[in-house]
């Protein structure tokens, strides 16, 4: 189980999370939808990232992110039939570990990769990716492999 991407895209994710600081930044990970997407240990290749506005109420943006379902539906329909899709999300944890929180788990979808970036004082400090188990009880970490 691996999340593959490029150095360039990793930098984009880090920059987006840093510029959202002290609020949580968030965005979409796009790429080909593999066979066995639901298998634990599947390999994903992210070929595009898109930053999205954090839709949460102002007072909670520092510890929450929310993606507007309409924006998401738009991207899904844009990629419909292309074999590519929204294969994961990234978001940042300002001044907190890059481990999924209980809230992340409660809200998580299966199959997808959840890439979490720890931002301390405006600088990226850690970066980890996670896949939720199908029973929804836990997250399993997957290595982020940078190519190119």
């Amino acid at each position, binding site marked *: 189980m691996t999340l593959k991407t490029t150095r360039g895209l990793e930098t984009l994710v880090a920059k987006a999370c840093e510029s959202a600081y002290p609020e*949580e930044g*968030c965005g979409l990970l796009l790429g080909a*939808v593999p*066979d*066995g*997407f*639901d298998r634990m240990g599947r390999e994903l290749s992210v070929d595009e990232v898109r930053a999205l506005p954090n839709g*949460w*109420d*102002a*007072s*909670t943006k520092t*510890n*929450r*992110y*929310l*993606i507007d*379902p*309409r924006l*998401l*539906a738009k991207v*899904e*329909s844009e*990629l*419909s*039939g292309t074999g590519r*899709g*929204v*294969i994961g*999300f990234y*978001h940042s*944890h*300002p001044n*907190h570990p890059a481990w*999924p*929180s*209980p*809230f*992340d788990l*409660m*809200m*998580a*979808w*299966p*199959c*997808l990769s*959840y890439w979490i970036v720890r931002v301390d004082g405006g600088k990226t400090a850690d970066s980890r990716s996670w896949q939720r188990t199908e029973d929804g009880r836990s997250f399993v970490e997957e290595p982020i492999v940078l190519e190119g």
Partner: protein
Amino acid sequence: MSVEIRLPTALRAFADKQEKISVDAKNVGEALDKLFAKHDRLKAQLLSPDGKLRSFVNVYVNEDDARDKQGLATPVKDGDTVLIVPAIAGGVTLAAEAELSREELRRYDRHVILPEVGLAGQKRLKSASVLCIGAGGLGSPLALYLAAAGIGRIGIVDFDVVDESNLQRQIMHDTPSVGTSKLESAKKRLLALNPHVKVELHETRLSSANALELFKRYDVVADGTDNFPTRYLVNDACVLTGKPNAYGSIFRFEGQLSVFGAKDGPCYRCLYPEPPPPGLVPSCAEGGVLGVLPGVIGTMQAIETIKLILGIGKPLVGRLMLYDALEQSWRTLKVKKNPACPVCGTNPTIKAPIDYEAFCGLKEKPVTANPEISVEELKSKLDKKETFVLLDVREPHEYEAAKIDGSKLIPLGELPNRLGELDKKAKYVVHCRSGGRSGKAVTLLREKGFDAVNVAGGILAWADRIDTSLEVS
């Protein structure tokens, strides 16, 4: 009824990689049941063990969120698309969903038993935050009802002290609080009403420097200000921070109400691109106000605020309600979003708060004294039958009591809207009782390109020195 269900990428693996699945159904619930019958692994992902849609699942019928319609009972017709969209959310800490204590449940019982509010809605009110601009006439019923309704965090901006003359309408304050800070008085009253809410005091003058930071910390802003610079500042800061503004204003016996700055809705500037000339619209302190009036309008602001938070009903977006207490009537006007609006239009030019005192013409301008003539000069012009319009800008009752023959009446307050009646080529000699209001009228007329002069001393001087038979009170 054949409808197409579209699955997000994350769920296709549970439906043999299909993106679109057609089923026959009469409503959303039935469509989902049929989907689950075909693909049972989807059910566990979308429904909680008790068979309800999980909170992070959004279902749209064509463009509309089924939650805004009838939920699972939302009917579908042939050719409709049912879209399942993940609500993607997360963050550092566990959802601090507001919990209601037993006392709170008892207190809010009449809310909770309303299906439109329910337990979930009451928790939402508790998690919500509202910033009230002003702790005066409008702010009083507004903050009182918001506190009573259990809004979790209520912020109030004001920097005034309670004055005896406030008590005729500002019912949040009381006689013992005269001379003390309005904010402290408000906090005491609100917490006595409901100790379960948090009251945040911002004892400051709202300004271009602090508005954005302040607004960012709240979900809804409710504008109860009494002056134009602050009203435009609140509007612009709401648009810039994306906060809806439950707006109300009052004057004498009339009130206005709307929701500005909502997503896709118009803002105050769409309705009034420019403020009236300074001094033209008197404040409550100058013009007076029926004490109950802010009670009506501020209460309606509280209703709009609560609707916005709960997401129920039809918010007053794109509509301006006008209340007339003397007629006891409400009128509703449509307000369209102005694509050329400098703050919320398609190419906004205002991207940060501006200098609102200057915008509203309240900063000192270079002195341009209005040309004046004396009553003697006026008399000689009339005697020589010179061609000009003698404009009287007093109120109709003053005009009826005593007037200069041949004068035309347009009260100062109506003048901006009646400029169309005036011929730009004509010359205007303007008077009022003593020269003050006509001075403002002359300034306005000259700004708009009319040739206008003021009569020094007004009809009082005329009655004193020219026509002593006139009795002017």
